[in-house]
């Protein structure tokens, strides 16, 4: 999947679906969004990450046309969302952060109702199948589980066959298996050629799904990139961790390992390095010369979460 994604990204998608310049939103004296720039291209899954209260939902609601910006330019599918009419709404789908099923209607009836709102809706049965609710098609929406309700929400956002779909924290409160199921639905949107604007505070979600990521913290974009390069993730130090046999500690290591090593409270030793291969070799030479193995040896790249936490901490300080 990753190969397919980066292939797509490299393939030069130049058509911009969303352009945001200098967007700001103030509520009284509180600046929720402080002049951000964004670009989203056709056919990509764009993840918009940030902690709660960072300005994610404010931004997405401006892009959906529910709120008006205090300052800045916003263009979604070539139109200012605040001025957009029915033609524009025919091309856009939105899964809101919180919305319950239509009261007293089954899954199929909900979709029939919404299909009637659009000029050229998708097939109802196909849409139900796409989100994996075939078994629940004739169940009342109120009786669905949290994960199933969210999938119904995604189906309702897709029924008009939109080009662009907003997903605002689509998996908040899901158990791991429901989250996996939702991911496969979202990944399926990519193969339909849809553009997806995804907000989330789950790193693994962005890592799994996104072609590109922007991180917002304190109302400002603090980093932008692909899941592999965000915040210089590809160049950040790796961590080598191991446990030396009884009695041998960090201070017994040869240089240059000794000055890089950090003993951990659980008895393991960590070495943070920008040259992991060289230092693993030094470590291996030393261990074999001393006549023991390092059975729990681990070399770990920083996760997207490590990068994200570092970035959002920075955001708080600024």
């Amino acid at each position, binding site marked *: 999947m990753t190969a397919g994604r980066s292939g797509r990204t490299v393939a030069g998608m130049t058509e911009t679906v969303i352009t945001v310049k200098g967007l700001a939103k103030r509520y009284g004296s509180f600046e929720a969004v402080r002049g951000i720039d964004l670009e989203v291209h056709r056919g990509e899954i764009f993840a918009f990450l940030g902690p709660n209260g960072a300005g994610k939902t404010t931004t997405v609601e401006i892009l959906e046309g*529910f709120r008006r910006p205090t300052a800045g330019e916003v263009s979604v599918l070539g139109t200012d969302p605040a001025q*957009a*009419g029915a033609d524009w*709404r025919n091309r856009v789908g939105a899964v809101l952060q919180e919305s*319950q099923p239509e*009261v*007293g*209607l089954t899954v199929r009836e909900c979709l029939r109702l919404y299909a009637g709102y*659009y000029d050229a809706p998708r097939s109802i049965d196909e849409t139900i199948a796409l989100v994996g609710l075939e078994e629940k098609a004739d169940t009342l929406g109120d009786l669905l589980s949290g994960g199933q309700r969210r999938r119904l929400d995604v189906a309702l956002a897709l029924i008009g066959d939109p080009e662009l779909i907003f997903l605002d924290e689509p998996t908040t409160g899901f158990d791991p298996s429901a989250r996996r199921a939702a991911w496969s639905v979202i990944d399926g949107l990519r193969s339909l050629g849809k553009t997806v604007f995804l907000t989330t505070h789950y790193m693994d979600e962005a890592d799994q799904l996104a072609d590109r990521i922007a991180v917002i913290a304190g109302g400002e974009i603090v980093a932008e990139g692909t899941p592999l390069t965000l915040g210089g993730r590809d160049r950040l130090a790796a961590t080598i961790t191991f446990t030396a046999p009884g009695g041998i500690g960090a201070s017994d290591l040869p240089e240059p390992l000794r000055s890089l090593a950090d003993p951990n409270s659980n008895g393991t030793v960590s070495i943070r390095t920008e040259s992991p291969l060289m230092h693993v070799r030094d470590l291996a030479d030393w261990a074999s010369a001393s006549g023991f193995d390092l059975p729990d040896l681990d070399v770990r790249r920083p996760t997207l979460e490590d990068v994200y936490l570092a970035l959002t901490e920075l955001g708080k300080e600024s």
Partner: protein
Amino acid sequence: MFLLIRWLLRRRRDRKAAAPEAPPTSNGTLGLVLHQTRYDLIGFLRNRQARFFTLVLPLLFLVIFVGVFGNHTVRSTGVKASTYYVPGISALGLIASSFVNLVISITAQREAGILKRRRATPVPAWVLIAGRSLTAIAVSLVVMSVLLAVGRFAYGVHLPTSTIPGIAVSAIVGSVTFCVLGYALSSAIRSEDAAQPMVQAIMLPLYFISGVFIPNVNLPSWMRHVAELFPVQHLADALHHAYDPATHGIGLVWTDLAVLAAWMVGGLVVALRRFSWTPLARGA
């Protein structure tokens, strides 16, 4: 009436966002209103609480009040108790479906994010409002027909054939007025839990002083003056008049309709200024 609402909403939308909306063909939009009405009706009929308060409770009230007063001619009204209570309880049934049920369901749908999600689709706002109001009117007419049928067969109530136009016009004007007032009131209620007690607190006292539960000739005059200010009294009076066997002509009371229309306009002004599609309890 809907054309008026539609026109006002159009105007407002145009003023708020100067975007011309592609005018859908009249056949298409009427179809869309009926589409919306159909699913609103299904949702209503599947809601046990709504069914009880709108369809069953008015019938219970009719049986109880006729039982309490006995089905003979009541001196203060000059008609049989059942002839008095069929129109009175019809007013209550109409208000239950147009106002009480609408306030509760609209508040619940708004707080559950349902109205907001609908607004994220191309459906015009007035279609949603018209569809929901048509549902309320249809339910009102059904409740009134059931009350009249029960009154006819159980209590021998006079069938008001010549005044059917008066009954229909009063019922529709009343129903639209209470729908508009329902939209206006829902904008002031922040949660679904507050909706039920709020509407009952407003309506119960009005039922008592407006001739719905007790013939209002029995009331002190100051109480009648208070009731005159509110639409419940005028809806009940219009229906009492139209159902009265002594009424000649088509049974319209223009002053009552004028007061109802005034409340409708007032409700419309409040609803247009205050009505929200997004949840009030959360968010900025």
